[in-house]
């Protein structure tokens, strides 16, 4: 139980002090569980990160589940996830309770009239940043453009588009990846 609480408090600390979404949490999780606590080897953390980014769901949640699971099995995963989520749950709950009351204030409305276009810019910038690493050849561009047309223009539900992109990725990239693997092993 003592160790579970230690896991909980380590992730609670990370959850409470990382601003700017889940991706910002990952370096902090690494610092805490690899450098500070020595719970996970640096190499193992790279595997954990690969899984966290491939599996569905928030990256920070995936990372904490896997770290906790690796340390003490399912109870470790539960406590790590609770620690990660609880700070943001409490903060947003507090904001949700009061935001609707202050949202009508003219100053707040003026502030959000500046913030909304800024959020659009943040999201657009994120698309550019991720595209730089994720879309690097004609096949990648094809999948990206098709998915964009389907979701943004035609209005297809994102779930079939995501499944379709996985299948298309398999079809388009499998030979390339296989030959890359052969080159490496030769």
């Amino acid at each position, binding site marked *: 139980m003592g160790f579970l609480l230690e896991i909980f408090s380590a992730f609670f600390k990370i959850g409470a002090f990382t601003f700017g979404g889940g991706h910002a949490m990952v370096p902090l999780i690494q610092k805490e569980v690899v450098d500070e606590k020595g719970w996970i080897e640096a190499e193992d953390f790279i595997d954990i990160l690969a899984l966290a980014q491939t599996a569905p769901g*928030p990256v920070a949640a995936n990372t904490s589940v896997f770290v906790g699971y690796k340390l003490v099995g399912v109870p470790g*995963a539960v406590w790590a996830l609770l620690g990660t989520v609880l700070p943001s749950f409490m903060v947003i709950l507090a904001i*949700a309770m009061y935001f609707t009351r202050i949202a009508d204030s*003219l100053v707040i409305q003026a502030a959000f009239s500046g913030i*909304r276009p*800024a959020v659009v810019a943040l999201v657009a910038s994120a698309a550019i940043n991720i595209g730089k690493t994720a879309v690097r050849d004609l096949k990648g561009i094809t999948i990206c453009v098709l998915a964009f047309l389907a979701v943004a223009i035609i209005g297809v539900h994102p779930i079939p588009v995501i499944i379709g992109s996985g299948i298309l990725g398999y079809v388009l990239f*499998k030979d390339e990846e296989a030959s890359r693997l052969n080159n490496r092993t030769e």
Partner: protein
Amino acid sequence: MTDILFKLLFTFAKIGLFTFGGGYAMIPLIEKEIIQANKWLSMNEFVDIIAIAEVTPGPIAVNAATYVGYKMAGVWGAAFATIGVILPSFVVVISLASLFLRYKDTPSVKAISKGLRAAVTAMIASAALSMAKASVADVRDIVIVGLVVLGIFKMKIHPIICIFLAAALGIALWALSGGMTLFPAL
């Protein structure tokens, strides 16, 4: 009451299960499920939540779930929605961890994840477009979008700082346009 709680749980579990690449990539899914199908939020409200999520700790998906859950069904709603969005992470990561670590370097898995990553780029770009349609209305808004994009790419300003600067700009422009004289009490 229990109907809405389970609907929140199920809807956010669906969102969690089909979000790859975290955060912004889930916006089109939230748009379809939360804004269009269930009408739990308006697009502008959702843009506000993203701004709030940026400046508070925790993953954006978790923040959005907590906020929507609270708005629809109070504290219990917040709890059910939040559990819903992290449940798939928990189940998938724990059940597939060993499988993933064994197969992560195979050509098939690499090819599928390449396809998914290209789709994630499209999802985020599509999110930026829908948010722009709701939140960018005039020249002033376009200028703010341009300024923030410049700030992020050229001046490397942190997104949180961008949001506070945009809020200040929004208030300043409102005050200059006569907001203060209309409301001398402020």
